[in-house]
């Protein structure tokens, strides 16, 4: 039995998942929220983004169950000796992708390569030769790599793509069948409706996205066991594996930092707007001070202090992963502590407006306590602002992490993140011959992740803030354009 390790960020991620599930349940039961979310669910771009995000989230969650494997008993140890655990903390994802993680090379190798990217002195038939050595892992199953490589890659790619296509086909049929059960039509009819875009929920767009993902995953799954699909980095680690691990870091930073801003922003923002006067002045002063310090400098100052603290107390962290995780956790907390001013300002303004409304006056006349009014009448009515700001900020935080890691105040150097990947890519591009795959992997994963986050966020904003809907671009259909003009906010 391995020893389970619950890292700080893991626990928060689980709690966040539970909270999201609770919110979904709550939204389903509340007619108002349900109606608003229906707008998001019917937006094709947002739902395609949601499909991609779901896959990323799956990776992040798989990478959030940590354990320390049990070591085999040492030779000659007593039978009742305490079990010894590895000093390495692994995640479920590490265990699933053990091949890619353990198949380390010496240094750089190109995607799908069988040979190292740089020459080395080798002893061949008793003579010193400088040549590209074979990789220990990539293409190790090939005997005559020059002749077999193209055929092997082609065959594996074809098999992988076929597998992916099959998976995609099954998905289409599954969705059609499930949809047919709820609408009462036959499965074939349902499939036709999806294909003709006659469904309210944009199933066709979602399934096309899912199919593209399935094809890609199938292709990778077929090649990964024997090749480094995206090559290896300077220390010979698999780049694709690192990119997938980076997804969790990005997700953790985004969600935890957003979560950390909420208590400050909500409590202080509402208090300032509700009480006005002295309280308002004090809280405004506090967030003006915080927001007048350029954020990179403020974060740098905090992180430097934490480094000193962690340097002073090394005994608090059992393994390297735990240490890196605490740093990640604290970084997210710092981003929260330094970033709540903007939301607090919005909430203050919104609360100022709400306190003048009749129902708040009525509650006050009935003798409801201040705390009660704030909790029951004001908080629920500013939640849409909180939601909009939270989803909009998420992608910005993912981008910000990369910059902070570059500046040197980001995640622990041992944590895989897009920032550290880009950092190493900097020297690799000016190397000759150039190493491009590290940058390509970071770029692709990051753009797909951030773009999906942004598309989803903008749909949520449009649903919860009707004013934003007027600013959608319209493709050249005169009818819809005219409708949009008419729907523009009339004075």
């Amino acid at each position: 039995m391995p020893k389970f390790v619950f890292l700080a960020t893991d626990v928060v991620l689980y709690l966040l998942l539970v909270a999201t599930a609770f919110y979904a349940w709550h939204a389903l039961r509340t007619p108002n929220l349900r109606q608003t979310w229906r707008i998001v669910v019917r937006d094709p771009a947002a739902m395609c983004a949601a499909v991609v995000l779901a896959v990323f989230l799956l990776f992040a969650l798989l990478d959030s169950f940590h354990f320390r494997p049990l070591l085999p008993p040492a030779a000659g140890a007593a039978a009742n000796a305490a079990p010894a655990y590895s000093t390495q903390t692994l995640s479920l994802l590490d265990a699933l992708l053990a091949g890619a993680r353990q198949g380390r090379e010496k240094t750089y190798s190109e995607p799908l390569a069988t040979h190292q990217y740089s020459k080395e002195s080798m002893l061949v038939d008793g003579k010193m030769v400088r040549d590209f050595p074979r990789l220990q892992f990539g293409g190790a199953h090939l005997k005559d790599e020059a002749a077999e490589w193209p055929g092997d890659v082609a065959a594996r790619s074809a098999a992988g793509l076929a597998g992916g296509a099959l998976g995609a086909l099954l998905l289409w049929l599954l969705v059609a069948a499930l949809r047919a059960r709820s609408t009462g039509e036959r499965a074939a009819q349902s499939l036709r409706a999806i294909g003709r875009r006659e469904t309210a929920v944009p199933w066709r767009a979602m399934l096309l996205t899912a199919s593209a993902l399935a094809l890609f995953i199938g292709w990778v799954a077929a090649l990964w066991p024997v090749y480094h699909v995206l090559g290896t980095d300077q220390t010979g680690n698999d780049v694709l594996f690192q990119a997938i691990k980076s997804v969790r870091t990005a997700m953790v930073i985004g969600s935890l930092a957003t979560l950390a801003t909420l208590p400050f922003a909500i409590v202080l923002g509402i208090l300032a707007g509700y009480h006005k006067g002295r309280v308002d002045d004090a809280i405004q002063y506090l967030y003006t001070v915080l927001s007048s310090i350029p954020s990179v400098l403020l974060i740098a100052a905090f992180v430097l202090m934490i480094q000193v603290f962690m340097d002073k107390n090394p005994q608090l962290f059992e393994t390297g992963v735990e240490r890196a995780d605490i740093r990640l956790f604290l970084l997210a907390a710092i981003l929260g502590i330094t970033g709540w001013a903007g939301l607090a300002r919005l909430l203050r303004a919104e609360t100022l407006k709400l306190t003048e409304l009749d129902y708040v006056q009525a509650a006050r006349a009935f003798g409801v306590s201040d705390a009660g009014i704030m909790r029951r009448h004001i908080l629920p009515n500013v939640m849409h602002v909180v939601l909009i700001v939270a989803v909009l900020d998420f992608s910005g935080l993912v981008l910000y992490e990369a910059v902070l890691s570059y500046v040197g105040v980001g995640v622990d150097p041992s944590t895989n993140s897009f920032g550290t990947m880009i950092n190493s890519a900097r020297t690799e591009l000016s190397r000759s011959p150039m190493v491009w795959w590290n940058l390509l992997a970071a770029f692709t994963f990051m753009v797909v992740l951030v773009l999906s986050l942004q598309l989803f966020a903008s749909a949520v904003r449009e649903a919860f803030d009707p004013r934003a809907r007027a600013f959608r671009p319209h493709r050249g259909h005169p009818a819809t354009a005219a409708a949009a003009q008419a729907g523009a906010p009339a004075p």
Partner: protein
Amino acid sequence: MLNYVIRRIGYAVLILIGVNLFTFVLFFTVNTPDDMARMNIGGKRVSQDAIEKWKVERGYDKPLLWNSSAPGTGKLTNTIFYDRSVQLFALDFGPSDSGRDIGYELRQRVGPSIALAIPTFLLGLFVVIVFSLLLVFFRSTYLEFWGFTLAVFMMAISALFYILIGQFLFSKVLKLVPISGFAGGPDLFIFLALPILIGIVSRLGSEALFYRTMFLEEIGKDYVRTARSKGLSETVVLFRHVLRNAMLPILTSTVAVLPLLFLGALIMESFFGIPGLGSYTIDAINAQDFAIVRSMVFVGSALYIVGLILTDISYTVADPRIRLR
């Protein structure tokens, strides 16, 4: 107006005091100077003598707030707080942890930062306004849709990628400009061309979308309808009437950041080896030089506050209807 400005400056001083106290607490009480010394010298086994020596050299051996052993006003002034925090208001930054005068360094580095920041800002503003006005001009056409999509896509790309790919493309492949470095005189242009270009492109996406919504909000108003019904062409309506009226919200978003430009685009300077304030800060963070980081926090927030006051004043210039009291 004058009254208003004086009141704002008073409030600004209050905020600066807040910033100052905050950084003092963060840097000196969360961790003691001993911890800083240990980290700065490096290694776990640092002798107490080395720590004391490090502290004496940098004046960190004094008491934090109250020096009971000093005579007279020295009780207050012969302390870390007075030396390192109060003196900042007199723009006396003291020596950095590596012993160099911070004030001198700042004066040396302000020039290159401005040389990079001002053109980036002005050209960037021009490009963004033109791009977003074109998006509005071609609204409800495929051009707008694809322009919008392009802007969304550009927004999803980290600035770091723009820098890396720009350096690779223009310096390594096309060999148009040097990869990094800085020089005065006529060479200035070739060293700054690429950082300015990348600085503009990396912000284009998000800012163009922001300006586009502001122009669209403006375009639904009555005066635009009047202008159109007078028979003015769409170009004149957009570039003369709408642009001028939309300047007010644009001012809010840009003037406030103007003084912060002096800090330079942090990463841009460090990537391109421009000896400005931004690269100074990043070097200080990497060298864990607490004195420089503390000074930069103070300078940065002072500049930000100046920016806010400038924003308010520029309102009255841009829109005579607004009166500050």
